[in-house]
Structures are given as structure tokens and as C-alpha cells.
């Protein structure tokens, strides 16, 4: 058992709480750096997808997990990022400029969505973002001069000075890894800052937050902007990884898939984004593998996939509302406290009387 005895305030905001964490994250970092040599090309490419989805998961974690604002239109930000990147790359802009540009433009769009969000909460916000997502998808389809329309758009490979590489190269893996690590550190720092605390306050109670002097409109818009920027960054990398993008890759279904990242991973912690991204990416692969062992060869994959996906979502919410990260916390607590773990330790109070209508 480990006791954390805090003797200074600095210790409370330290990135790593104790030596064990330094060791394990260090090991993970080394493994991540060596991954191109350790893993097969196929696995590495899956990990790149996981990294990209982790970025989006981080974005959603800021918005939904920490600020409590729901978005069912996040694929739109992914799309804005992806098309910005594709457009800038076709003009030969270096990715050192085009990636931040994609993030910035997505952030701008995020602010536009965030402004009306001040008046909306809960389910109305979900419907507004859903409408926004569908409209953006339609714009991407119709604005053929820029996006290539429904026929899709080819994304040129990344270039750094004279060296060029595409989505399947090791160099691209490192670009993704560095982006994710920097973004995760950025989000961690954000959440330790007054801005991050304000986000959490808004999530817990808007009225209390406002009465403590938090400017709701500004912080909600800011949260949307940060979330959209991270998602746009993910979109830019996604465009390179796919190397060919069409508007229907950024539709409603994808938005829902992105939301499931944080639902499955667990809301309220950055680990959740990583775990969730891993499940969402690996689940279809595992279904494809499992299909070989099923007796009936006639089962269409698409149907099976959507069935399993739905069952996983329902199962997680019914049996593990804290997501995979929550499950991991429980297992870890069980062992660190052995034999004193109680079943009710993580139980949350249900709010039966909490109603959106009377709140």
C-alpha cells in the first residue's frame, strides 16, 4: 500500500504524483518510441489510428468530460480539420504550418458553435450540434470547388523541407505520437489551471459557477474552441492516414463513434480517452477475427458489427458506467487495498430527483 503524504501545495499539482507513476509512464514512453521496431506494420498502423482517435477523445474529454457540454456533431470538426489539411497540403504548405492552421480553423468553427450553446443545455445542445454536424457534412459535399464534393479529395503526403512521407511511414507514427503527447500534456496543464477549474465548475453547476464569477459564455466558447482544435488536429492527421477523404467519412455515424470513445473509456480522466480510442478502433478488428470462427459464413459483417457495437455501448453503461478506466481503477484499488476493498467503494449516488425540467 502506498500513502501519499502531501507536505506542500506544489505537490498537489505535480504532474506525477509518485515515483511509481514516473517509472510506468517512462516505460510506456520508451515502448512507444521503440514501437516501429517492435510491432508489425499492420499493428503500427492500427496504433496510429488509436493515436488519432485519442486526440479526438482528448478534445471530447475537455468538452463533455470536463465542461459537461454534449456534442453530437464532432465529426464536423474532424472534417474541417481534414479538409483544411488537404487543401493546404495541395498548395505545398509544410505540415508544421498546416497542422496548427487546421487546429485554428476548427477552433474558429468551434467558437461559432459554442456561442449559441450558451443558451442551450442538455438535450437541446445535443440536437443543435447534431444539426450543425449534418449541415457541415452537406456543405462538404456541395462545396465542390474546395472539397472535391462527393467524389472525394486526395491528400498529398506530408513534407518536412525536402523529406516527404505518407500515412504508412514510421515518421508519420512519430508525428502522431508527438502530437498526442503534447496535446495530452497541454490538456493536463489546462486542467490544473484556473481555466480548467472553471470548466469543471461549469460542469458541476452552472449557477454556482456563475455566482463565483465565472463568465459562462466565455468559458463555454473557449471549451468548444479547445475541443474543436484538438479534434481538428486529429482530423488533419486522419486525412493523411487515409490519404483519400470523402464527406461521408465525417457524418453523424462518425460523430456517434467519437462520443463512444469517451463513454467506453470513461468520462473524467485522460486515460479514458486512450482506452476508449483503443476499444473503438480494435473492436471492428476483433469482430472481423471472431467472424472466422462463427459457424455461419453468411452473416454480413456490417450487421454483426453494428449489433456488437450497440451491445458494447449498452453493456458498458449498464454494468460499468465509469468506463474501462473506471474498471481499471477498481481493479487497482482492489489490489492496493487487499483485502479491504468494499463493493460499494465506487458507487455513485443516483440522482432520481434531478430533472432537466425542474433543475
Amino acid at each position, binding site marked *: 500500500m502506498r500513502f501519499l503524504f502531501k507536505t506542500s501545495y506544489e505537490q498537489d499539482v505535480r504532474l506525477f504524483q509518485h515515483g511509481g507513476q514516473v517509472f510506468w509512464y517512462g516505460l510506456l514512453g520508451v515502448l512507444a518510441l521503440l514501437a516501429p521496431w517492435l510491432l508489425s506494420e499492420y499493428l503500427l498502423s492500427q496504433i496510429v489510428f488509436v493515436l488519432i482517435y485519442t486526440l479526438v477523445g482528448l478534445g471530447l474529454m475537455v468538452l463533455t468530460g470536463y465542461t459537461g457540454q*454534449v456534442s453530437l456533431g464532432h465529426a464536423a470538426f474532424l472534417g474541417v480539420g481534414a479538409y483544411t489539411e488537404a487543401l493546404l497540403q495541395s498548395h505545398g504548405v509544410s505540415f508544421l504550418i498546416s497542422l496548427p492552421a487546421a487546429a485554428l480553423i476548427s477552433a474558429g468553427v468551434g467558437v461559432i458553435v459554442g456561442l449559441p450553446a450558451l443558451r442551450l443545455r442538455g438535450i437541446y445542445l445535443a440536437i443543435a450540434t*447534431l444539426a450543425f454536424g*449534418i449541415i457541415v457534412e452537406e456543405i462538404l459535399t456541395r462545396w465542390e470547388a474546395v472539397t472535391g464534393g462527393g467524389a472525394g479529395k486526395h491528400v498529398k503526403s506530408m513534407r518536412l523541407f525536402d523529406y516527404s512521407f505518407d500515412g504508412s511511414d514510421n515518421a508519420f507514427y512519430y508525428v502522431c505520437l508527438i502530437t498526442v503527447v503534447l496535446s495530452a500534456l497541454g490538456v493536463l496543464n489546462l486542467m490544473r489551471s484556473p481555466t480548467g477549474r472553471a470548466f469543471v465548475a461549469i460542469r458541476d453547476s452552472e449557477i454556482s459557477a456563475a455566482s463565483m464569477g465565472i463568465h459562462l459564455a466565455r468559458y463555454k466558447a473557449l471549451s468548444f474552441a479547445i475541443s474543436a482544435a484538438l479534434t481538428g488536429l486529429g482530423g488533419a492527421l486522419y486525412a493523411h492516414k487515409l490519404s483519400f477523404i470523402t464527406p461521408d467519412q465525417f457524418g453523424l455515424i462518425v460523430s456517434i463513434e467519437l462520443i463512444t470513445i469517451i463513454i467506453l473509456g470513461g468520462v473524467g480522466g485522460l486515460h479514458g480517452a486512450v482506452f476508449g480510442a483503443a476499444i473503438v478502433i480494435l473492436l471492428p478488428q476483433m469482430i472481423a477475427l471472431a467472424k472466422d470462427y462463427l459457424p455461419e459464413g453468411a452473416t454480413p459483417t456490417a450487421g454483426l*458489427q453494428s449489433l*456488437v457495437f*450497440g451491445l458494447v455501448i449498452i453493456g458498458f453503461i*449498464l454494468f460499468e458506467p465509469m468506463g474501462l478506466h473506471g474498471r481499471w481503477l477498481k481493479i487497482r484499488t482492489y489490489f492496493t487495498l487487499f483485502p479491504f476493498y468494499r463493493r460499494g467503494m465506487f458507487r455513485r449516488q443516483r440522482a432520481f430527483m434531478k430533472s*432537466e425540467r425542474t433543475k
Partner: protein
Amino acid sequence: MLDQIVQLAQLLISGVAQGCVYALVALGFVLIYKATETVNFAQGELMMLGAFLALTGAAIFGWPYWVSIVFAIAVMAVLGMLAERLVLRPVLGHPAFTVVMVTIGMGYVMRGVVTMIPAWGTETYSLPTPFADHVIKLGQLVLPTQSLAVIGMTIALCVVLYTYFRFTRIGIAMQATSQNQLAAYYMGIPVPRINMLIWGLSAAVSAFAGILLAPMTFVHANMGFIGLKAFPAAVLGGFGSVPGAIVGGLIIGVVEALAGFYLPEGFKDTAAYIVVLLVLMIKPSGLFGERQLKKV
């Protein structure tokens, strides 16, 4: 000039017919929302399943149209009640968005199951109806019996639902539950059972909507996405209002029909969402919704 008026009337009729379907789906989730505060994202899928059941009755078993309608509605009512009992009651009291995710998961499951059933699959079917392909000519106006039947059946259903909520014991109990759960509970109304029945009723209404929609768009596994248009309808009418849902649905249907004809391509599919964004920005409580203030 006369031509244009006839054309407009023609558009209005087809818009209203389409709007009736939106209205019924919207009605389905307004019922659920009012009673349980759950926003059911699987309403469109319930509609799709209802259409498939009717198709099974009519095309595979060869039953008459009306029998297969009754069959589809009955099966869907039972399925709706089962869904409430098995999936939604356990998540009662969780945050609203968690419950939304559960219904989204249910939608996935239903779509998956439909594509996996051999006789249904991913293909597109048409549901044979007794009033297909006739037209009634009124001067220059051409009225397809299909649209008239849809409008007529929607009106009939609304009358039935109105009498049910107004005059039957259980209908009044449902109204009480949706107005104030706790008070209803104190009055001896079995709230959980009423919620279950409301889910059954809502699923049955959606199945009916699916059957009405089937001749207009064909039956296929992804027809549930049309149900998403019912969200704008419900928001437009004020989310918790039953008459609002009907009016909202009709408005969305008409706006869509007009946008498809008078505006450039691309506006038909997004018109509903543009309208809902405008409504949310200008009057978030909708046309019929009551304004709610939060007490501190």
C-alpha cells in the same frame, strides 16, 4: 399564375404527407420524453423495425394489409415495453446523456439485428398497400391517394390518441405521470408500469409511422435515419408538447418540400436542421413549449 398556385398546393400536399410521418415519430418521442425525460434516439429504428414487421406480415406471410399493420403494431408495443423494462429502467437516475447513449446503442442493435435476419437483410423492399398508385383529379390538382391515405390515417390516429388520453383511466394516469412523477406516485399511480406502457405506446406509434412511410421511401435497414428529422419537429413544437410535435412535424415536412423545389440542391436534406438551429437560437422553448425558469 394559376399554374403556380396549383404547383404550390401540390407541394403542400406532399409536404404534409411527409410531415405526418415526422409528426408521428416526433409524437413517439415526445410521449417518452414527457413521461420519463429520456430522449430516445432509437425512435427512428423503432419505426424501421415496425415497417419490417409489417413487410413480413404482408409480403412473406401474405396477410392482408390491415392485419399486418395490427401485427406490426402489437409486436412493436411489446418490444417497446421490453426495452423499457430490460434496458432503460436500470439506468433510471443516471445523467441524461448516459441514457441518450443507451438509446443510441439500442438503435445500433436494432439496425444490426435487422441486417442479420436472412429474410430482411440490407436490401430495399416496397410494402404493398391497397391504395397504391391511384390519383384523384380535382380540377388541375392531382391528389395521390397514397398521400391522402397517410394524412387520413394520421388524423385518425390523433383522434384515437386524444380520446385515449382524455377519457380512459390509464390515459389520464399517463398524463399525470408526465406532469409530475412524484405527485403521481403519491396518488397511487404505478409509475414504473405506466412508464413501461408509455414506451409500448410510443413504439406502437412509431411502427405506425414506419408503415405510413414505407410506400413513400421503401423499407430498408437505414430508414431509421429519417427518424432524426423528427428531432427538429419536436424541438420546433417545444420539446414536451404533444400538439407541438404534430404541428412541428407538419411544418418540417412542408418546409422540406418547398425547399426541395424552390431552393438549390442540397437544401432539401438540410432544411429541417437549418430550421431547428434557427428555432434554438431565437426561441429555444419552441412554438408550444412553456418557458421554464430555473429556481436557485
